[in-house]
């Protein structure tokens, strides 16, 4: 039996390894070749020159500082929410699962523009409350940047922590209580240790995401003169003279940092993995909340939503409705014309929406399949190859998007005569799959860490064939992870900007590039109207999907 399974698993791993090499490693090699090869010769001296510029040290330090601060702040924001949504009566309000995704659905550059419009001198806040004059001096600082970025990425932390907390059986806590441990001691001795493995995954995700983020540092960071590494990498790739090699060389530093963090996370996760989902019946008892605690919980939820969603969307929506921006929030200065313009001016708005929907659905689905297969293969394998494959699967996240996208363009343009995919919609799907694969990998891995091997063993004892075990034991247990991965990919693919603005075939717009083109030609309100429409669409689509899944699972 066993002998049958192993080779097949190893074969799957080998096939996936080849596929990943083709999809990810080849593009990466294509661009990194530009970093070390000049005029057809290997020249490491120039690479070293790029890397050893003194201002790089400052920018790396800034990036790291930003990463750490954002991890800390998003933990502070997400941890109480994760607890409320998993261990208390708030767990039944499933709608929050989607609502708390809105900050993440918002393209980073839109969110930071929203914040800037709200907080700037004579901005929306100061128009509403003239006494707030001077508040811009507090906001346009590193603190403001950390806040805006944390409010954008905390949903990652929230979903990972929440899924992990859901799997902790109450019996463990109760055991603690029986032995006389108070709430604090139970939290410290039972709850937190059980979470540390998953927290490490969440922290890594947030850290890496912050390090490779471009939108917010380019808009808000630039304003406060806080230069990070990613903006420098973009500068090399898009300011004449174009120097892809330079941006590749610089991003190798980022990859190095992220790989170190990944090893650290792996170390923590393997040491602190607890197989919580085993054959034993596990139940969750709702933590009872007193009336004042319930009120406080509601207060906290509303506060986070008001800051994370309310403020940026107040700016975005009011901008989309204001007729003449120079007169601000004054009666009579509102219009729906910008929304009408999306549909009446030309067909570009509608076709951009269609393209984005197509890309989001296809890439999320392919990612879910590929990512799940990858995790299954890695988990089932004993060969040394598995860590390498996993690392390759996560590589796209560690590189700033632009570096990988240029790599993909270089590689696929090169092999155009063999495989004519470049400059078609296909290359966009491919690029999105490559870029967003890590989300599925991370979410599925996170749900895997808690599954006990004894469940699989039980399946085998009762004569389950590998496929049967997969279908009836493993897949149902990891399906929440797959679903979350799908959703995250859908959201991020729907709003992706950097990739689309470089790799989109001619005459093809997606929503993000549509918004950018409108901004560039001064029609900010039209762009904002499109942004509002997109978030409405994403939210409703995901709510409907959630409801449909709930209904079908109840029927079963």
């Amino acid at each position, binding site marked *: 039996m066993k002998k049958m399974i192993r080779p097949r698993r190893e074969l799957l791993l080998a096939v996936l390894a080849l596929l990943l090499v083709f999809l990810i490693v080849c593009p990466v090699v294509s661009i990194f070749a530009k970093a070390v090869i000049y005029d057809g010769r290997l020249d490491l001296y120039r690479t070293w020159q790029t890397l050893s510029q003194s201002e790089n040290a400052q920018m790396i330090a800034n990036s790291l500082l930003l990463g750490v601060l954002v991890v800390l702040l998003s933990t502070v924001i997400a941890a109480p929410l994760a607890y409320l949504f998993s261990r208390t009566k708030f767990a039944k309000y499933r709608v929050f699962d989607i609502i708390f995704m809105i900050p993440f659905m918002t393209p980073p550059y839109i969110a930071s523009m929203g914040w800037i419009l709200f907080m700037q001198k004579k901005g929306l806040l100061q128009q509403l409350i003239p006494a707030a004059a001077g508040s811009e001096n507090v906001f346009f600082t590193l603190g403001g940047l950390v806040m805006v970025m944390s409010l954008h990425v905390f949903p990652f932390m929230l979903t990972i922590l929440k899924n992990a907390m859901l799997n902790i059986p109450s019996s463990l806590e109760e055991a603690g209580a029986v032995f006389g441990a108070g709430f604090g001691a139970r939290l410290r001795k039972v709850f937190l240790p059980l979470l540390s493995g998953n927290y490490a995954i969440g922290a890594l995700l947030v850290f890496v995401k912050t390090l490779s983020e471009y939108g917010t540092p380019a808009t808000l960071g630039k304003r406060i003169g806080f230069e990070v590494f990613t903006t420098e990498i973009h500068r090399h790739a898009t300011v004449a003279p*174009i120097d892809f090699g330079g941006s590749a060389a610089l991003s190798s530093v980022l990859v190095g940092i992220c790989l170190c963090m990944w090893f650290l996370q792996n170390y923590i996760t393997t040491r602190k993995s607890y197989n919580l989902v085993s054959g034993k019946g596990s139940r969750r008892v709702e933590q009872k909340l007193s009336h004042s605690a319930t009120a406080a919980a509601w207060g906290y939820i509303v506060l986070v939503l008001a800051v994370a969603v309310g403020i940026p969307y107040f700016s975005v929506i009011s901008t989309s409705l204001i007729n003449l921006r*120079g007169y601000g929030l004054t009666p009579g200065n509102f219009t729906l014309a910008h929304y009408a313009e999306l549909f009446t001016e030309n067909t570009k708005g509608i076709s951009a929406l269609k393209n984005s929907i197509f890309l989001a659905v296809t890439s999320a689905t392919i990612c879910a399949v590929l990512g799940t297969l990858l995790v299954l293969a890695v988990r089932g394998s*004993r060969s040394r190859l598995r860590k390498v494959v996993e690392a390759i699967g996560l590589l796209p996240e560690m590189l700033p998007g632009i570096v990988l996208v240029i790599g993909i363009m270089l590689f696929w343009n090169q092999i155009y005569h063999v495989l004519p995919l470049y400059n078609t919609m296909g290359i966009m799907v491919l690029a999105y799959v490559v870029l967003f694969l890590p989300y599925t990998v991370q979410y599925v891995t996170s749900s895997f860490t808690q599954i006990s091997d004894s469940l699989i063993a039980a399946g085998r004892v009762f004569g389950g064939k590998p496929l049967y075990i997969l279908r009836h034991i493993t897949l149902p247990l990891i399906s929440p992870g797959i679903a979350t991965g799908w959703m995250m990919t859908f959201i991020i693919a729907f709003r992706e900007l950097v990739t689309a603005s470089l790799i989109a075939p001619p005459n093809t717009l997606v929503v993000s590039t549509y918004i950018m083109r409108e901004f560039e*030609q001064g029609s900010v309100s039209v762009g904002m109207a499109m942004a509002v429409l997109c978030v409405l669409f994403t939210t409703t689509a995901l709510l409907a999907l959630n409801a449909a899944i709930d209904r079908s699972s109840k029927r079963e």
Partner: protein
Amino acid sequence: MNCKKMMTSLTAAALCVSLAACGSTGAASGAAASSESTAAESAATSEAAPAESAAETTGSGKVTVYMPSPAGLADKLAEGFTAKTGIEVEQFQGTTGEILARLEAEQANPVADVVILASWSDGLSMKADGQLESYTPTNADKIVDGWIDADNELFGYSASAVGVIYNTTVFPTMDADWSELGNAEYKDQLAIPDPEKSGACKDFVAGYVTNNGWTDFEAMAANGMKVPGANKAALEAVTTGEVGALVAGVDYNAYSSKAKGEPIDIYYPAGGTVVNPRPAMILKTAPNMDNAKAFVDYLFSDEAQELVAKAYLLPGRSDVKCDSRSNLEDIPQIKPDWEKMMAEASEDSAKVNELCSANNG
């Protein structure tokens, strides 16, 4: 056990092979590129033959154009050209940075025929790299003096200029010269587009400081001048009234906002500004060379020049006038020395950012 080992080594071998394969494609791009592009060219010409007989047009019936903002103008030009010639236009719209990055990434198998950029100096650097085809467009004799280079490779079919854009709710009227912007009445009311991100602003800074030195920019910086971002973000700051005036703001977006009724206006200070022709260029590697030439001809047609004027840009032909913005002869100019400006522009831009760095935030 044995089986597993075999699997591992097999996979490892496969990895090595494919790695080597893509390593060599990446590395040998120089040699491979030239041979492949000739292959592409010959393929294109052979394909072109039947198309030629089928329609009056030449090439394979399409032309690929990379164009910068404003998107509205780009769309209209593409539409007009197709209506006139029947040649489909495949356009990629992007910022200068995106267009340049795309061209660089496509070196192995070039896709673009015509490239339009927003600043003359960026065009000159493409010319210096030897990427451009020489051509004499129809109506070349009517092109504004100096808006076509000596080797007929850069065609300035339109132009923008930078001026001072001001918010009329803050300053009802304004006509201060550059040197007066350091005065107390403009304290904390000034912004400038990030010259490292705005080609037009970069060229102006370089042109201005070569003639006048740094005193005026230092005074503006000392007066609290901010750098809110590229052109778009900088215009935002003045439209929403965060600052009263934008120094070296690109004019056409200001004109179109003003036409919508926004409380902003623009003027060109007496000290002179840099008029920046926006070059259209034909790439040597153009897969549809004849169509590319036809497109450039179209850019200088009456129809296209009218579209340019309607988009609040300066027309590239001296005989086409615009009625909704200042004409070229009404704009006080600094005579640009492009060679010198290009040599110094990057350094000058960095210096402006450095001078203003204390004012941001």
